[in-house]
């Protein structure tokens, strides 16, 4: 039962029902006796199902109305709970059940008033009316119905108003967020377009310089047969054009890679410690462990390993809260090198999301099966996999139920033969 409530997040509804029962049932008990407290229970329960299983709200109202007729109960202050139910239905229930339940509330109130107006013991001693005539009973029914209908209508409209205001605020918030996102994307696109344009110009310039290199080299070869000095002069020009082309290509490289880290040397396994520092500064814990007998790797493989770790921890930062622990394990085996990047992001979220029993949010076998069957896909994972596969290795990415995410890459290595 508790699990059912936790899963379906019934806490607000249960609280509301209990409050309504305490307030209106309490008023009934105080003014009309304990039996009227019991009569208010179905109405309090009606509010329990306004959001989910809305048809049960109508059923509870029907039960409440039937009990009122059965016990020949007269209208009481506690019946004001019906207006609250109409309000709550207006806020939380979706059509068609919203209309049905508001009509059910109205119908219930009419039934209670009709039942009261036919009650032989009907009297209003406070107003000095001891006994009602038939006309009096009719007037009582009409006035009571109009009052009840107005109150319930007002409550339902009020509920709708609150809902609309909430949705409007949410919409405005979403729109602001969307606008800001759009602005960011537009800005980024404009930057990219500009960068692309610049790259085009630089490429054109580089092509011109390369053309110059080729033509001058050819001219040098061609003319050197007649005049060796002409060959040397052409060589000077070749050198100048080659240098200009090189500097243009350098600018092009920097323009294309702007926004990413450009280092003079490609990253190595030693560069991973810098990532550790960056993660700590961002509020994440990270540790790197090395085991096994290390061998010298090809620099391109070291770059690939660095990129994989970089991409994996970037994902950790994107999808997990601060405080998440990332462990990078680099293990040298006889013929392979394994890189495992684990995080405990899900566990951190779970621990922070404590249920009513004070325990972390639970998970069950379904979560296990889902995680086992789920195929992790995405451009980042694909890029990582392609990097590893280009070295003849393999990559596995998997969610670990209740804990987080693990990426495991296996690179084949060749150890030098020992004489």
């Amino acid at each position: 039962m508790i699990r059912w409530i936790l899963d379906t997040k019934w806490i607000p509804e249960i609280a509301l029902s209990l409050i309504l029962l305490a307030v209106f049932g309490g008023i009934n008990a105080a003014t009309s006796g304990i039996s009227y407290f019991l009569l208010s229970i179905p109405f309090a329960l009606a509010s329990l199902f306004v959001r989910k299983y809305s048809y049960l709200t109508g059923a509870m109202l029907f039960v409440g109305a039937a009990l009122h007729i059965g016990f020949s109960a007269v209208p009481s202050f506690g019946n004001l709970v019906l207006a609250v139910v109409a309000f709550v239905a207006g806020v939380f229930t979706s059509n068609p059940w919203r209309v049905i339940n508001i009509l059910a509330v109205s119908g219930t109130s009419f039934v209670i008033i009709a039942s009261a107006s036919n009650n032989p013991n009907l009297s209003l001693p406070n107003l000095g009316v001891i006994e009602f005539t038939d006309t009096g009973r009719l007037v009582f029914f009409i006035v009571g119905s109009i009052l009840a209908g107005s109150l319930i209508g007002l409550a339902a409209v009020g509920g709708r108003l609150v809902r609309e205001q909430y949705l409007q605020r949410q919409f405005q918030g979403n729109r602001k967020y969307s606008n800001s996102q759009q602005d960011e994307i537009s800005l980024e696109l404009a930057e990219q377009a500009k960068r692309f344009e610049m790259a085009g110009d630089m490429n054109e310039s580089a092509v011109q310089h390369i053309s110059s290199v080729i033509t001058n080299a050819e001219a040098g070869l061609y003319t050197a047969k007649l005049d060796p000095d002409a060959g040397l002069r052409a060589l000077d020009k070749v050198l100048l054009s080659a240098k200009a082309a090189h500097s243009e290509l350098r600018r092009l490289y920097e323009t294309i890679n702007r926004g990413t880290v450009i280092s003079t040397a490609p990253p190595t396994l030693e560069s991973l410690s810098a990532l550790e520092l960056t993660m700590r500064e961002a509020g994440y814990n990270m540790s790197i462990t090395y085991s096994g007998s290390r061998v010298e790797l090809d620099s391109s493989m070291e770059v690939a390993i660095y990129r994989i770790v970089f991409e994996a921890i970037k994902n950790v930062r994107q999808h997990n809260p601060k405080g998440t622990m990332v462990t990078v394990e680099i293990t040298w085996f006889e013929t392979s090198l394994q890189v495992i990047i684990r995080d405990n992001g899900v566990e951190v979220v779970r621990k922070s999301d404590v249920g009513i029993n004070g325990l972390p949010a639970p998970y069950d076998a379904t979560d296990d099966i889902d995680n086992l069957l789920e195929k992790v896909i995405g451009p980042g994972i694909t890029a990582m996999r392609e990097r590893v596969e280009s070295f003849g290795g393999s990559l596995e990415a998997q969610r670990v139920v209740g804990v987080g995410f693990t990426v495991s890459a296996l690179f084949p290595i060749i150890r030098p033969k020992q004489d």
Partner: protein
Amino acid sequence: MSQSLRIALIDWNTSVRSARRAILDATENITVVFESDGSKDQLTQLPDLLVDVIVIDQQLDSKTGVDAFLTLRQSYEELSEIPKAVLTTVFDITSLRVQALGAGMHDVVSIDSGPDGLINAIRSAASAEPVIDLAELAKLLTETPPIFKSSFELSQAVITLPVRKKGLIEKLAEEWPKIKAGSKPKLSLEQYQPLALSLGFLSASEFVIKLMQNGVLDAK
């Protein structure tokens, strides 16, 4: 001793231009008599220099080599005075070749053709012999169909042609779809050279491309 070919060298890239000049200067029977970066003021002098071949690069300061040649050709009073032109370019691109041939240029030489490619193109331009045959031209036009530009003057010129010459065009129109489909042509571009010149075109290639642009060759 044969007469030396007078060359005009037009290229915006000074370094490339001077290298080409060095190559041409070192080549027998070729003399560079005019050098320019393609600016309009300099090009106006060209008709007075009696140049045999213009070597013009596609990338100039303010316009393309093809456009510069089209402007240049208008500054000559007689069709026979217009020198043959060789377009130099970084990459050999089919669409550019079609564009250049359609503009009446003799040939297109890319940078990877080397000095020999350039010199051969210049010599072939000077002798006015077509560097492309009808099958190759048909292939080029199949790969990059030219934009259709109807010319009333061309239509009129074709209509008023004597029956014999008109028959030559009809024969080409009949053969053209087969050539485009890959059949070996029974005709040659040389056959059309006199007709092209008589109709105010610089080369048979330009004439065929113009016929194609006017729908004469593809008319059912």
